[in-house]
């Protein structure tokens, strides 16, 4: 297909969902099936455009050297202009495959999952805007328009997390998500304007693919002494990633984000929000590298440490959670930490690869957890409708809608408050009741654990570990830290995932609701099956040619299909200097396999062989204080509240009373009193001395004083007239002098 046509399609990519949002908001907000048609139709159209572009460019490794670009002048700035445009390069091409695919499946799933919600149309509208913004972000050729879509996504996630806005926990989570990511965004804005004032452009190709600019930035000292501009700009921009991709210390918003309906979680955790953060960090990778070239490794070091810390922290906290979605939320944080750590040790390809595979299996896991919750809730309603005759009327009315709204807002809130359909302790034995969900969820779980050779998660996680191992054995101390931290985190990942699968599906049901759970309709299960397919296979696109383990020559097989290390070759065109691929080393692979077996076995021993029965305590609770701390998410929220939020809130609450009214206005009122006292003197003078004649100036002051004291301003006309006359007198005075 011609380049022009592909570029036209690229321009069009973000629009169908955005237009769908507008159509739904303005015209279709009362029509459910019309909304479904518009929303899904828009998303399918975007997917079509994206796939045409992807399959046209994916065949060539030369795309990196000659990306598709198109731009126009957006704002005039003096004699220059600020241009915005679209581009297709290997990174955006890869996202043009993943994002619309995952989003379309989430859309289809949502039509069933949210189908009975009273605000269904609003939900689909926001979801469309969300997806459209992500597509716009992917095809943006410059940081400013990327940031525009980035913030639009922030708004969408705010709206969707707070979708059940009557519920205090929901709107609090929404505000928390918006504000926490906004802290990162402020750093990003600083990085952005810093880069702009240094280079005069924010275009990715004119900055990150331009040797001269990179050289200049690496040679310029930053405003902070001891750093290069390249490294400081890079870190400030990375601040945006910390917020958006929920890295320590700004990770606190993501677990709460599950207050939104489950498809939103899938959207946030896989296809859009958090991926955008890593996506942007990858775009600015050349900046960190160029700084490191001149010996300023600050950026790499900070990024590596943040990634490793987050990976471990997330995995630890996930072990102590009971909420099925919360476990997944912390696993996302942890997995994003893996990617960030990979960037920190220079593993561009590994990070991008894990980002893609993770998107598929995490979307699968979230949609799967939604399916579980839906099934269990169904069981609960079923029970409810039959168990309590006095509430019989409600059961079927309620069935299905507002299911995430559990505990609040329902007519029968008191009955629901006691039951949490997201708590894994209330589940068990679902494998036979929800077989499709069980199989697909397990596939997603295995991918997250990194089950060797058969899942996508294995290949990408192994690539990160291999990269870290290579760095460790070649004298990079940061890589040593990253390697061992990620190994521990990976063991924990395998363990908590096994725990989750066994607690949810194994053994016998621990509640009546779980016993009555039923499988969901095809609109929900088919997306799961499709995602499961990709969670298994998408890793095969990047098997190193020389990969060999236990006498099986995986690399050679992949070569036979012509896809060996395809992703690596395709994506490395993004880098000014292609990444040196280490020779294949079996040691990290042995680590990967060992990690999976060790963590998985731990899970099997504690949860698989003897599944939890109703009323039994979870074995991890035996950890005592450690468990309590993990269960309370290591008290980050409490700490932030005490350290930052409360003092700032107190300052805000007291400011206008103390400073504006209490200080500035007091001063004003005092000045005014003095003035009116002077006026009193004039008044006296007026009365006693200039009896009968009216002194104009005194009159002004007298009136000011009089009116001000009584706060009666009925005669301001006169005052104004006096002031104007006084002004004229002064004018004449000056003219006489002249």
């Amino acid at each position, binding site marked *: 297909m011609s380049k022009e046509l592909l570029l036209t399609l690229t321009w069009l990519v973000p629009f169908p969902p955005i237009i769908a949002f507008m159509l739904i908001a303005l015209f279709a907000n009362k029509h459910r099936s019309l909304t479904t048609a518009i929303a899904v139709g828009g998303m399918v159209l975007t997917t079509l455009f994206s796939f045409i572009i992807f399959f046209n460019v994916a065949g060539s490794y030369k795309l990196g050297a000659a990306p598709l670009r198109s731009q126009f002048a957006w704002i005039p700035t003096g004699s220059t202009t600020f241009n915005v445009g679209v581009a297709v390069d290997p990174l955006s091409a890869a996202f043009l495959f993943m994002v619309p695919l995952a989003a379309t499946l989430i859309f289809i799933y949502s039509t069933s999952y949210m189908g009975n919600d009273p605000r269904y149309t609003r939900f689909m509208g926001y979801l469309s805007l969300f997806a459209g913004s992500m597509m716009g972000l992917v095809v943006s050729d410059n940081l400013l328009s990327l940031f525009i879509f980035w*913030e639009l996504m922030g708004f969408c996630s705010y709206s969707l997390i707070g979708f059940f806005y009557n519920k205090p926990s929901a709107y609090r989570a929404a505000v928390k998500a918006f504000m926490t990511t906004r802290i990162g965004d402020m750093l990003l804005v600083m990085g952005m304007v810093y880069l702009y004032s240094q280079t005069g452009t924010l275009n990715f190709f004119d900055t990150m693919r331009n040797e001269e600019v990179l050289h200049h930035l690496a040679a310029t000292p930053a405003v902070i002494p001891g750093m290069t501009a390249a490294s400081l700009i890079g870190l400030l921009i990375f601040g945006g990633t910390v917020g958006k991709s929920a890295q320590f210390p700004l990770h606190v918003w993501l677990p709460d984000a599950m207050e939104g309906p489950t498809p939103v979680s899938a959207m946030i955790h896989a296809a859009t929000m958090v991926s955008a953060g890593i996506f942007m960090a990858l775009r600015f990778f050349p900046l960190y590298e160029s700084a490191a070239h001149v010996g300023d490794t600050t950026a790499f070091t900070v990024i590596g440490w943040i990634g490793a810390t987050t990976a471990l922290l997330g995995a630890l906290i996930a072990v102590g959670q009971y909420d099925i979605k919360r476990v997944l939320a912390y696993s996302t944080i942890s997995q994003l930490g893996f990617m960030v750590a990979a960037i920190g040790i220079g593993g561009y390809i590994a990070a991008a690869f894990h980002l893609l595979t993770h998107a598929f299996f995490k979307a699968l896991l979230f949609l799967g957890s939604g399916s579980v919750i839906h099934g269990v809730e169904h069981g609960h309603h079923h029970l409810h409708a039959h168990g309590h005759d006095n509430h019989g009327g409600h059961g079927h009315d309620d069935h299905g809608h507002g299911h995430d709204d559990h505990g609040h807002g329902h007519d029968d809130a008191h009955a629901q408050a006691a039951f949490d359909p997201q708590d894994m302790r209330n589940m068990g034995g679902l494998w036979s009741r929800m077989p499709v969900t069980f199989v697909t969820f397990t596939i997603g779980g295995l991918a997250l654990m990194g089950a060797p050779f058969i899942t996508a998660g294995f290949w990408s996680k192994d690539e990160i570990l291999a990269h870290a191992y290579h760095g460790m054995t070649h004298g990079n101390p940061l890589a040593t830290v990253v390697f061992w931290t990620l190994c521990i985190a990976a063991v924990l990942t395998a363990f908590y995932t096994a725990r989750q699968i066994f607690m949810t599906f194994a053994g016998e049901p621990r509640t009546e609701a779980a016993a009555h759970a039923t499988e969901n309709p095809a609109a929900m299960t088919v997306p799961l099956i499709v995602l499961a397919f990709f969670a298994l296979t998408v890793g095969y696109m990047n098997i190193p040619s020389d990969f060999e383990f236990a006498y099986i020559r995986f690399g050679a097989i992949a070569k036979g299909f012509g896809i060996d290390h395809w992703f690596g070759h395709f994506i490395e065109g993004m880098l000014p200097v292609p990444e040196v691929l280490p020779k294949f080393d079996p040691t990290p692979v042995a680590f990967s396999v060992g990690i999976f077996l060790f963590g998985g076995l731990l899970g099997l021993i504690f949860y698989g062989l003897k599944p939890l029965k109703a009323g039994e305590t979870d074995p991890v609770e035996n950890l005592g204080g450690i468990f309590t701390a993990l269960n309370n998410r290591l008290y980050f929220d409490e700490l932030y509240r005490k350290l930052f939020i409360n003092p700032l809130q107190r300052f805000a609450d007291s400011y206008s009373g103390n400073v504006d009214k209490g200080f500035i206005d007091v001063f004003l009122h005092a000045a005014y009193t003095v003035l009116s006292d002077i006026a009193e003197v004039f008044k006296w003078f007026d009365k006693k001395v200039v009896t009968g004649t009216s002194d104009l100036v005194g009159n002004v002051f007298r009136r000011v004083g009089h009116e001000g004291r009584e706060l009666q301003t009925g005669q301001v006309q006169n005052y104004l007239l006096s002031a104007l006359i006084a002004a004229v007198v002064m004018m004449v005075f000056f003219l006489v002098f002249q």
Partner: protein
Amino acid sequence: MIPNILSILTFLPLLGMVLVLLTPDRAKSTIRWGSVLFSLLPLALSIMLWAGYNTKQGGFQFVEKAVWFPQINSTYHLGVDGISLPLVVLTCFLTPLAMLMSFTVEKSVRAFFALFFLLETATLGVFVSLDLIVFFLFYELSLVPMYFLISVWGGANRKYASFKFMLYTIAASLGMLLSIQVVGLASKSFDLTYLLSAAGRPFTGNNQVNILFADGGVWKTVAFWAFAIAFALKVPIWPLHTWLPDAHTEAPTGGSMMLAGILLKLGGYGFLRLVIPLFPETAGQYAFVLAIFAMLSIVLGAFAAWGQNDFKKLVAYSSVNHMGWVALGIAVTASAFTPEVDAHATSKLHALAVFAGADPHAPVKDTLSPIIGAGGAMLQMITHGLSSAAMFAMVGIVYERAHTRDLTKLGGLWNIMPRYGAALIFCAMGSLGLPGLAGFVSEFLLIRSGWAVFTGLTALSLIGLLVTGIYILKSLQKVLHGPLGHEWAHHPLSDMNWTEVLAVAPLMIAMLILGIAPAIVMNLINLGVSKLFG
């Protein structure tokens, strides 16, 4: 093009005022709809101006000049350029919308709408006049209708608020009048185009004042400060802002819309039109002072807004926060004229901007930041005019129904007012500077220009931008979210009616269009600021 179009535009609202006064006070809806329809005429004229402005040529256009006060060399001199024309259009655009939001006024309808027309004439006069005396007369005239709008149709504490507003601004105006006299004495003219020419620039060459002080520099500094304080108070810049929350809160909805939308802009306009061009070196010398106070306005304005529980006061303080960014952009522009910064420009700024411009290899002086700063400040005035007017309208709508603005008493209203909820979220996001809506573009430009010149202060100002998010979300949460209060469950509040939609929708559309295609006005603004500060 119609001859004397600027005069016609400026005084056309006075005809509206006369017509309103001739209508019997009982014919309320005739007055209301008649006023709105009549105010579409100036709007049409202003759009004709916009369309007819020659962007190839730039500079002052539609110029009119007539003898007016020859004894003191003051002429009736009008004209518009890229700085004043957008504000003229904004004024004509906001007036009918503010009138629509005033349909609920029941007390002396005739006088109310008459004052509105007077206000429009006064503000238009300020923007189009190119003579300092004429400028001052219109500037003062704009206070009168606003004073009455607050003191007669205002809230419970209206007397205090209107009196404070009046005294404060009059006091500052007297200083400005003094400065105008000094400038006139120095250059023997009040004509702005002459004052900005090489021959007429005050305090250069023979254009000196040496009354009372031998050193003419004293008068220059005095005149600069008197001007600067008068306009800073209008913007308003911290700590001269305390009149604003009172005046805004007490004013009727339409009055607040005009006050925030237009009258505050007189301050920013004054800086760009008069202060920096007339006193470039002095302004440059004190630019950092302005920048510091701008930063304080941004940060403290935001915190103050966060601390409010009165919806309207929250929105009022948000103006301090937003207009602080205008002041920062002005400071950046002013800084370009300091001798010190010029020295800087050849060393530090030079290094900073090596790649600015078309050819990345050509060494470029940082002439871009001052232009971006002024352009950003101008655009911010326009976008704040739209978003603050919209927010005051939204406050007015809820107050009209609930008879309270106490955020702790509202809540959950989205359940019963879906249209209002969507509109409020939209307008609040415009105020927050959500990308895609107008406020973002101007803030981006201002941060960019601020960073290049006042890096540390800009970084601090971003704390204010962070808190902007907090107070906006606070207002949304307290009004729309949460469970519906019992009070509102029993007295259901009606959703936005069509008059209100008609008043708010144009603002929303304008915010969206300017957010997506800012070049529509930026082309004009850029032309104006490039000519003045390039």
